[in-house]
């Protein structure tokens, strides 16, 4: 069985086409059921996100399966084949494996290293496996892809560092306060950016969210929509004393929080650290307030600089990530090759065992006079000789570097030992199969 990938991604197709191809609207499970109707493949998984639609299948005839998938895509989504064709890419064997691993690791994502993709690939595989659309090839392939993605995340900095302003603020807050549980966040101003940052903070399990705005109604509305408590504008000074994190995002044309006010507040807070995130333009907080001990003041440009820095750092981690991917792909290909060798190994064992049994039968009259223990010993010795003879060829076959070598070895063994194809089991998997000896019947 061979691996085939057909798909489109943000690299090859415009958003309009990707939107039309997205399976999630009509259900990946329905698509999988419809796809397996074509009968051109044995195993299938559909990865469908807003940035990519990819179909991974295990099939016997790559060209037939590719055609079937293209036809399926254009029929299922009602897109003419000639519109779709130029945007599709298709990969087989090691290339397809590498592609999936890079996707799972976030190397192929729009924002390099973004963490959601691994979960999305996992979900995609989960759906396919629940429907029984996956088999030995895709099961192994996807599980190794998850492992590769995990390795990249834990061994490189590819997924490290926030790449959005609001998340950069959250990350900084965590570096200042550690756990955000039990912390109080004060949002001044009811703008969109303030809201977004507050929502990010909330997902970190903060204790209290206080919202205040010059227009009380705006504060109340925002508090209701994201779950916080509104506070009147003139209570700002009191709220400042309670807050650990202050997010300012008003439309005021001059700073509304002076250095003197922050200074007073710090005294009243007995110097508990205060993290001020000033995402308003023009700024809401007097920049010199950041000079105060235990006050950490970041404005939107500072956060933007952090984000830029993180993005370029991720880029420099990519080389390490690619190395890990190469290693993991080699491991998978090794497994695949050894799977390709299995039928030959089994046939060889059967052949040896058949010879041993027939010789034992032939010698039966001579052995009959021996006591039972001695006969058991003879059986044991002949079996051990057979095992010893088989060890080396088995190892060599399983560790062959590429499918061609496996094929050449298998071919030689079949000729030398007169192995026939009938003895092979039906589960054959090779990356490229010039010497496929048995075909699994379509399920």
């Amino acid at each position: 069985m061979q691996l085939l990938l057909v798909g489109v991604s943000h690299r090859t197709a415009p958003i309009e086409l990707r939107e039309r191809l997205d399976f999630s609207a009509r259900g990946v499970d329905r698509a999988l059921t419809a796809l397996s109707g074509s009968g051109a493949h044995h195993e299938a998984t559909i990865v469908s996100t807003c940035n990519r639609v990819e179909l991974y299948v295990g099939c016997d005839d790559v060209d037939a399966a590719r055609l079937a998938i293209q036809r399926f895509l254009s029929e299922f989504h009602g897109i003419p084949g000639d519109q779709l064709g130029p945007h599709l890419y298709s990969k087989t064997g090691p290339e397809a494996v590498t592609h999936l691993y890079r996707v799972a690791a976030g190397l192929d994502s729009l924002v390099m290293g973004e963490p959601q993709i691994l979960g999305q690939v996992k979900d995609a595989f989960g759906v396919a496996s629940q429907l029984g659309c996956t088999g030995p090839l895709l099961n192994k392939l996807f599980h190794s892809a998850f492992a590769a993605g995990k390795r990249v995340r834990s061994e490189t900095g590819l997924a490290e560092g926030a790449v959005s302003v609001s998340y950069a603020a959250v990350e900084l807050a965590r570096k200042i306060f550690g756990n955000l549980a039990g912390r109080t966040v004060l949002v001044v101003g009811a703008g969109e950016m303030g809201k977004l940052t507050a929502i990010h903070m909330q997902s970190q399990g903060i204790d209290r969210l206080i919202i205040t705005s010059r227009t009380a109604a705006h504060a109340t509305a925002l508090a209701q929509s994201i779950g916080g408590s509104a506070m009147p504008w003139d209570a700002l000074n009191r709220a400042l004393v309670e807050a650990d994190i202050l997010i300012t995002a008003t439309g005021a044309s001059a700073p509304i929080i002076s250095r003197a006010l922050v200074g007073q507040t710090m005294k009243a807070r007995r110097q508990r650290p205060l993290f001020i995130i000033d995402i308003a333009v023009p700024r809401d907080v007097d920049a010199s307030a950041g000079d105060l001990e235990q006050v950490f003041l970041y404005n939107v440009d500072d956060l933007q600089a952090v984000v830029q820095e993180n993005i370029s750092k991720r880029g420099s981690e990519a080389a390490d990530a690619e190395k890990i991917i190469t290693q993991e792909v080699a491991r998978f290909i090794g497994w695949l090759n050894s799977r390709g060798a299995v039928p030959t190994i089994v046939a060889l064992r059967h052949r040896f065992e058949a010879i041993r049994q027939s010789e034992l039968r032939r010698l039966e009259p001579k052995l009959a006079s021996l006591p039972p223990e001695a006969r058991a010993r003879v059986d044991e010795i002949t079996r051990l000789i057979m095992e010893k003879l088989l060890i080396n060829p088995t190892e060599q076959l399983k560790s062959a570097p590429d499918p061609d070598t496996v094929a050449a070895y298998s071919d030689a063994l079949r000729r030398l030992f007169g192995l026939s194809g009938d003895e092979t089991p039906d589960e054959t998997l090779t990356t490229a199969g010039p010497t496929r000896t048995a075909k699994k019947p379509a399920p």
Partner: protein
Amino acid sequence: MFMNAILLLLYIAAGVAYAVQFARRSFAVSRTATVLLVLAAIAHTFVIGMETMRVGHVPSATATSAIVMFVWLLALSYLYVELTTGERSMGVFILLLLIALQTIPAFSAGLNEPRSAILESPWFAVHVSSLLFAYASFALAGVLGITYVLQFKEIKAKALGFFYERLPSLNMLDEMNLRAVKIGWLFLTAGLISGGIWASQLPSSGVPNASMSMADPKIFVALLCWAVYSFELYAQRAIGWRGRRAAWLSAVGFAIVLLNFVPVSYFFTTSHNF
């Protein structure tokens, strides 16, 4: 001494592993680092155990053997903190300190631990072990203080870089620092009191040259330490000197402890070997 040189090599091996894991942030190396340090600490326990059997009391009556004890206690205290918090980023700093201090016994001739009746007093054992434990806590606090300042500077200067990526949060460093100072202060106080009681019993013990002088620089510096850490704890409660100021005090306090430990012990003390 031969055994101490071997311990030094073990600490250096662990130190290299901690440095690599700090620089590369590799999980596999960090496990190796911990294992190496645990091995070093076990070997160290064994060496101290042997020495105790030989001289009949815990070997800490000379400056060199006190350093051996201190290195051991600091390694154990650090391991305790690492294993309870899972935080390894302090390891490289602690190991640097351990290696620097362990160099002294590794290259000194022998311990020449005296067998003496006055050292058998239980007050002596309490005095020395409390102080050594206090100093180990202060060493941790000092390292936490330094790492706090490194982290603080990067966040304050908005230049998030090497340390920002590797060190834990300011809040955690601050809290651990204060906890270490509190524990150290309690043991320092206990060590000073028991030392005073022990010294007051000396003239009646009949051992010649056993009198202690309050003017001894060793005792003076120890009292200075006590003053610094008492101030740190007071300032933290009363005037909100948390964070960077507390961190600096911990670093300064530990610098004084080190001063007392090495130069004062070897060159200046008159009556107080350790």
